[in-house]
């Protein structure tokens, strides 16, 4: 099935900005996905870039619409780590029909933003509006639509974060639905750094330092 027989087929595509994207990742609508650099996307991770903000219908498209970047669906910062089988998708917002005649143009997809050093665990589903920097999302977590996660948050495994929930900084959340179960200790900030983890994956991974 290899399209390019020349050379050894590596596991990851490494970009100039240092992104490491597994060839087995499922990226839909790559033109709407923005990677900040040094981000790792593991195999079977899925990003739905195709669910971009739609330009307003032809009648009012003159205002904005086709400007480059205006319809980016997923923004990802630096040193993010998307584990196997996770799924990032922007969610549809019914921005309540402003025009009385309920045109479908009012129904659009809101972009999904990830800060820096965001770890997304295996098989997690992220439909949040925004995730801050230094956030750890555990395995099998489901983040509901328009949830906002601030900086330095730890989401424990198997948590379900309901839609519209706001999670303040330095908290640990768990449960179905999620509730705040603890605080990130002062000494625990460095554990969110993902530079080390970034180094240990890729086509020539480095061993983890002591």
């Amino acid at each position: 099935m290899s399209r390019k027989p020349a050379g050894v087929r590596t596991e990851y595509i490494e970009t100039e900005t240092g992104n490491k994207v597994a060839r087995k990742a499922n990226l839909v609508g790559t033109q709407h996905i923005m990677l900040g650099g040094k981000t790792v996307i593991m195999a079977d991770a899925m990003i739905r870039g195709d669910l971009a903000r739609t330009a307003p219908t032809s009648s009012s498209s003159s205002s904005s619409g086709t400007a480059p970047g205006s319809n980016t669906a997923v923004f990802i910062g630096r040193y993010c780590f998307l584990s196997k089988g996770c799924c990032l998708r922007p969610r549809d917002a019914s921005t309540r029909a402003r025009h009385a005649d309920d045109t479908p143009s009012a129904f659009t997809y809101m972009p999904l933003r990830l800060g820096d050093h965001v770890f997304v665990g295996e098989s997690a589903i992220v439909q949040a509006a925004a995730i801050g920097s230094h956030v750890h999302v555990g395995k099998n977590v489901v983040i509901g639509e328009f949830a906002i996660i601030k900086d330095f948050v730890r989401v424990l495994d198997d948590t379900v974060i309901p839609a519209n929930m706001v999670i303040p900084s330095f908290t640990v959340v768990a449960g179905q639905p999620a509730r705040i179960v603890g605080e990130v200790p002062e000494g625990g900030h460095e554990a969110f750094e993902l530079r080390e983890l970034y180094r240990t994956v890729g086509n020539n991974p480095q061993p983890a330092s002591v």
Partner: protein
Amino acid sequence: MSSSNKRQSVLPKVPSGPKAPVNFGSHVTIADSAILTGSHTINISSESVIHPRARLESTYGRITIGRRCIVHERTHVGAPSSDDKRGDFGVLTEDYVVVEVGSIIESGNTTIGEGCHIGPRVTIGKGAKLGKHCTITAKSIIQPGEVVPDYTVVYSNGLRRTDKRGLEILKAKAQARQIEILRRLISSNPAKFKD
């Protein structure tokens, strides 16, 4: 990456079984990378949307998707169940059903009632019968053969309550609008599955 910049998507092929015989209604939106496999017929009624990487499997029985349904990515409709007994049909979803990301609906006389909302990563056991307008929240599990009454909300690891909002008509309207949008976003290729 230079070549992949031009690519619209990075979607490696997945090994899939035999192409299933399909039967599409009018205005069906089905992504190119959806997977329809199996030996029985897969019916998708008019105006329904099948996201990329959704997997509809009719190996264990016929699959019927109602009108204006949305089947999200990474779902597995018609999944094999632990026991081998086959039903008269595989999975039947009535109209206005939403199956969210990563949910699994086992095959074998499994019925999903009208207007049901099946949240992310839900498992619906074989032969379960969901009444009309049920909401199954994320990561819930419906046991095989379970009958869920109309308007039930399953939440927090299996707790139940009755939905008293009475917003069915509004919900259906919103879903119709959403389908309208999705039709423009998802590049549909029903012809690929038909031959």
